């Protein structure tokens, strides 16, 4: 039996972009699947709940979930752009999702046009087949399709992976624009934490099935509480900062097959002490946002580790 996520408590804010950063083996896709109750058969939720608009999503039956999926919560899984039906035009995909939720597409064309505008796509792509569009355009089309029912929350999983850097930039801008134009909450899941600093308002750092830190992007950028967040930032070159020296985090991301007992980052952490591997650090709350969502980090050695930075820097 393998435990993929543990002790996960998150209160995500609405009308914001929350980024969830998790490398391989962190459990980020499992987290997304849990929220939407689409876990694979071999996985089960041992305990806990997922609350959305006052309802526990894990307790909903099939009809209840259908009412939420696509309409209130939209999900764009990894490589969604590669799963567009190759023999259907883009407009058919729009029509499908609208009809499935009882909305007549022909009298609601403006919603379709609206979403296309949000992602900066021309209306002509509606008549195209997926293979006629570039990867970036397909990805933006998928995002548009998932926005056409005006969901309150859209969860995107690795929407920019494998795409050209300029296309990636366009998609990030499209998401930002969408959030501003509509009252929309976005959860952006990626393995690339540095990307989140560009886009997200709030960042969740997931590692080894545990949330190590959750806070505003400014906090994580200037004064991260967890060594992992800090070291990861220091291991990424920045053009703006003209980086010429990088920190390397030793080792490799931990797979869910061998999560250690204590803090999952301890084996790689230069500041770790014995206690770090013995038990999972409890959440230390660091104050909250405007609407009371608690931000926190999990680290026994914080803030003491900040004094020891010099000895670690290359």
């Amino acid at each position, binding site marked *: 039996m393998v435990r993929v996520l543990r002790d996960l408590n998150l209160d995500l804010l609405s009308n914001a972009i929350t980024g969830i950063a998790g490398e391989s083996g962190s459990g980020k896709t499992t987290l997304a699947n849990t929220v939407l109750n689409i876990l694979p*058969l071999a996985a*089960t939720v041992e305990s806990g709940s997922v609350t959305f608009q006052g309802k526990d999503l894990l307790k909903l039956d099939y009809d209840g979930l259908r009412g939420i999926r696509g309409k209130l919560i939209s999900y764009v899984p990894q490589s969604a752009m590669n799963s567009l039906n190759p023999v259907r035009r883009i407009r058919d995909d729009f029509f499908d999702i609208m009809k499935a939720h009882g909305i007549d597409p022909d009298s609601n064309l403006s919603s379709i046009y609206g979403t296309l505008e949000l992602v900066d796509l021309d209306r002509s792509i509606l008549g195209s087949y997926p293979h006629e569009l570039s990867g970036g355009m397909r990805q933006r089309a998928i995002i548009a399709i998932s926005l056409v029912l005006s969901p309150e929350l859209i969860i995107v999983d690795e929407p920019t992976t494998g795409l050209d850097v300029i296309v990636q930039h366009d998609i990030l801008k499209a998401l930002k624009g969408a959030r501003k134009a509509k009252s929309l909450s976005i959860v952006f899941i990626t393995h690339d934490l540095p990307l989140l600093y560009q886009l997200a308002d709030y960042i969740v750092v997931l590692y080894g099935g545990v949330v190590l830190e959750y806070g505003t992007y400014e906090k994580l950028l200037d004064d991260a509480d967890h060594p992992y967040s800090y070291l990861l930032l220091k291991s990424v070159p920045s053009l703006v900062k003209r980086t010429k020296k990088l920190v390397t985090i030793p080792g490799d991301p931990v797979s869910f097959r061998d999560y250690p007992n204590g803090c999952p980052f301890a084996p790689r952490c230069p500041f770790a002490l014995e206690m770090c591997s013995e038990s999972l650090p409890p959440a230390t709350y660091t104050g909250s946002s405007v609407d009371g969502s608690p931000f926190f980090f999990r680290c026994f050695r914080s803030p003491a580790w900040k004094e020891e930075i010099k000895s670690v820097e290359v």
Partner: protein
Amino acid sequence: MERANHKSLFAQSVSPIKTFYSMVSSNRYSKLGFYLFLAYLVLTFVGPLIAPYAPLSTHGPMGQAPSSSHLLGTTIYGQDVFSQVLVGAGPTLGVGIAVGFLATLISVFVGVVAGLKDGSWLASVLVFLTYIFLLVPGILVVILFGAFFLGAGMALSYVMIIAALSLTGWAWGARTLRSQALVESKRDHILSSKLIGESTLSIVTRQIIRNNFSLILSNFFFTTIYGLTGLTFVEFFGLGSETAVNWGTMLYWVQAAAAYITGEWWWYVPVSVLLAGLAFSFALMNFGLDQIANPTLSGKTLRKLTKPKSSQPSLSGTDGR
């Protein structure tokens, strides 16, 4: 980011030896098939040594049911059925395996070269040949071949039967191996070997054949069954040598004497069962190999796929994702 590495599913076919070993030890179907095959192998070697009578000698009572002196009774002509079975095992198994081996060899050569050298004239020729031979109903051709010889007063020797069956049985394997080689040759790790300076021969033997070994082994089992079937048909139609003793010839004599009408069941039932059993042992090993090459076919996962899903949190199961 780590995505599911599908090749890891095939990692068990790491080396030919490991593949064979894991096939034989880890999967219960192939284990059974292998033990069954071993039993036949023993029969092949031990059979002629313990046969109580010369198989073709007609000194016994004619058409007698099984008794203490003739464990499987006698044929219409007074021959001991049991001795015939024991002595006939060798050639039967021998022809089957020889066909399997030879045909697989041809299909590996044709398939891999056609795949690797895709676009060249050689590949086009090989592909053309493959499709021609694929359309030809192998056993029928061999029978026609034998009939032609019969007309000229000659019988097909084992060598000719093996040759004819091999030459008609390689096409299917070549086709699958070609498509494998085509895909494989475009893979990064093959490009890498080319860039490092590996020779084509080395890439073919060290990588392509090795990577596809379970497929090749499976092809061998499949073709061996074809060889057994082919031999049976050829002999059944009386195209082989009259003095040959194998399970196919036995059935020829059975039908020549219409024993299934006259009721000498001991003459044809045991040998048919044994023949089917031999083919079955290869089929089992093949089936077991499938399961190793693609673990998603294993029974465990099948059960999981049919489990009804409820949205209530329940006790934890196995491996999450």
